[in-house]
């Protein structure tokens, strides 16, 4: 089956920043992404879990964005502007996609 090269960018970010990240990413011309819930985690600021939490102050989400390579820099700039002062992790992986016309 015919596949096409693309980039898979995974941004783990505080839930409270999700709308800001979404906006920044969309301003950078990227409209496709998927957001996964996160149960818990650990990092320099300690361990946490969402169990029983009602606030949105703790808790993160993971945004997955599959894009053509040429849009990568725009996306990273947009993401960086949001995560810069915040906790969060950005990772990029090379991938292949079906139906390249969608990206």
């Amino acid at each position, binding site marked *: 089956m015919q596949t096409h090269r693309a980039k898979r960018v995974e941004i783990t970010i505080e839930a409270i920043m999700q709308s800001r990240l979404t906006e920044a990413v969309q301003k950078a011309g990227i409209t496709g992404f998927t957001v996964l819930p996160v149960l818990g985690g650990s990092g320099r600021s*300690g361990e946490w*879990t969402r169990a029983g939490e*009602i606030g949105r102050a703790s808790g993160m989400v993971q945004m997955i964005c599959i894009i053509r390579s040429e849009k990568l820099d725009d996306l990273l700039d947009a993401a960086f502007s949001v995560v810069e002062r915040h906790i969060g992790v950005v990772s990029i992986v090379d991938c292949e996609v079906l139906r390249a016309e969608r990206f």
Partner: protein
Amino acid sequence: MEQILTLAGNNLISPIILSFALGVAASLARSDLSVPEAAAKALSIYLLFAIGFKGGVSVSSHGIDAKLGLTLLAGIILSAALPLIAFALLQVMTKLSRLDAAAVAAHYGSISIVTFVAATSVLESSDISSEGYMVAVAAAMEAPAILSALWLISRGGDGRRMDGDLMREIMLNGSIVLLVGAFFIGWATGEEGLAEISSFVVAPFKGVLCLFLLDMGLVAGRGLRGGSGVLRPGVLAFGITMPVIGSICGLGAGLLLGLSTGGVVLMMVLSASASYIAVPAAMRVALPEANPSIYLTLSLGVTFPFNLTLGIPLYVALATALTGV
């Protein structure tokens, strides 16, 4: 004094407090007991809806008080002023950075709606009535403290400012919208509306509150376990001193306004309590460098249990003594 002790004693062995204690204990003992996030949110939606609705019904049946406007204003002023006191106190009592101190201060100007709910439930058990619009005052006190704290930081030369988005997020915070919305629904539908849904919003209320406090205990205990490192003696002392100072400011305001005994108690409780939903979220956006484990542990792990167990009976006793009922 004896009365306070009796009230505190009664308060301490209520299912509500004991449920909170069970949560803290389970969490400290590292039990895997946990309430799913969605269930905890559902409980909080129920509580906000019920408390707002009942406040509105009470306003609809007792009519609007001339004092409503003034009480709201007093609430806003208290919410804006208390962070300044808290900030000053923190700089004296602790070694927190300006940033952390401002973030903590914001929490103490704002309010904890569960503490408010627990207080109304103590008032009910003691047959002390209060103004229904205190729910609206609670809503009005959520946000101003955040602005004060950000002003404290910007005064320190840091160019950080409130943006419009954050402002909207704070004012249209889900819990404020639900509380105020349910208040208006209660107001509009009145006793008739209450009759329709009282077996939902009144009858099971305290039981739901127990489960909610069980969850808050679990979360608080987890916070204490993880955040105990930040609880230096000075910080800890602040977490107990500040609610007392806040309650005295609330007491003064309540007496000046001529509120009922119950109203004075609730004003004290609102001033004494510290936010753990709206303000932490705003701080993560506006002051991400401030350490959340300091303000969350203080607010939920120290001040909340203090108010729940000792604070509320103390405030009830003081208000009862001073309003001469």
